[in-house]
């Protein structure tokens, strides 16, 4: 049976992951929009811009990914 502590831990993990997802989505959405804008201005630069986009995506994703990692730990290793 689920105890009260476990229930709170589940909610904590869910909020952590939800907010992280929100931040990542907004950040990468803006990043993608700039990429498409740049690609529309100068199509010959698309390969270079695409590489740079993936690099910056890795950085924007960093803190949300840390949040996801900790949230998974809480949800599965702590709250069972």
């Amino acid at each position, binding site marked *: 049976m689920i105890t009260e502590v476990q229930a709170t831990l589940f909610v904590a993990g869910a909020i952590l992951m939800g907010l992280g997802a929100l931040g990542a989505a907004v950040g990468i959405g803006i990043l993608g929009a700039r990429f498409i804008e740049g690609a529309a201005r100068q199509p010959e630069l698309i390969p270079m811009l695409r590489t740079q986009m993936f690099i910056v995506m890795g950085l924007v994703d960093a803190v949300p990914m840390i949040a996801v990692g900790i949230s998974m730990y809480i949800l599965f290793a702590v709250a*069972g």
Partner: protein
Amino acid sequence: MASGELTSGAYIKHHLQNLTYGKFPDGHWGFANDALEAKEMGFMAFHVDTLFFSFVLGVLFLFLFTMAAKRASIEAPSGFQNFLESIIDFIDENVRGSFSGKNPMVAPLALTTFIWIVLMNTMDLVPVDWLPSLAAAMGIHFLKVVPTTDPNATFGMSIGIFLLILYYSVKEKGLGGFVGELTLHPFGKWMLPFNLFLEGVNLLAKPVSLALRLFGNMYAGEMIFILIALLPFWIQWSLSLPWAIFHILIVLLQAFIFMTLVIVYMDMAHQKEH
């Protein structure tokens, strides 16, 4: 794995437990038999599986590259040699792009971090149960095969990088110059405590974010593989295949980002501003 019914929660927890060799509360040393004992060992514990896999992969990397270097030929390069040369060109290009100082150590450092992290991360693509089942047949009950899902491994690397940053900052700028940079940027000397606080946070955020970024990505990836492994076998392929393909991108991207940030931090440590 265990005799009798294994709940999904227990399966997940079993796969998330490192092989821990440490000091029990009563003082004797040995392998922990479950997660609770491992936690009670506190600080005096070694994650033997992390140490083993990171060491083996490091030795593999050195061995492969040394072999290729010894058998290198200019007239008729083998396919493997071409492959390694293209990797080295790639790293060289990146170092040239970001590093403006003069230090022959930076490019080999970048190569080592990149290849080592790629090798460690790629262990995540091995199906979840294969190596632990093999180990269980040999009597080892817990095995986490991806060293970078252990925060000890990623923090070990980033603390090493942090020490290098400190060493080269002091070497290039002098101790006075380095402390001056920490206390006099961005405002003047009348805001010294505030400057120190901002610059201190900035300095400490570098190794912490470096370690946790890699750890978070790999831990989340491994977690999803374990969860997919819980599904019935006839659904597994539809999920594990796309996730594994996406994960290949993540593996390479995270290693590349770690390497790029190492080069950028080394560059920042070598710059003499005023």
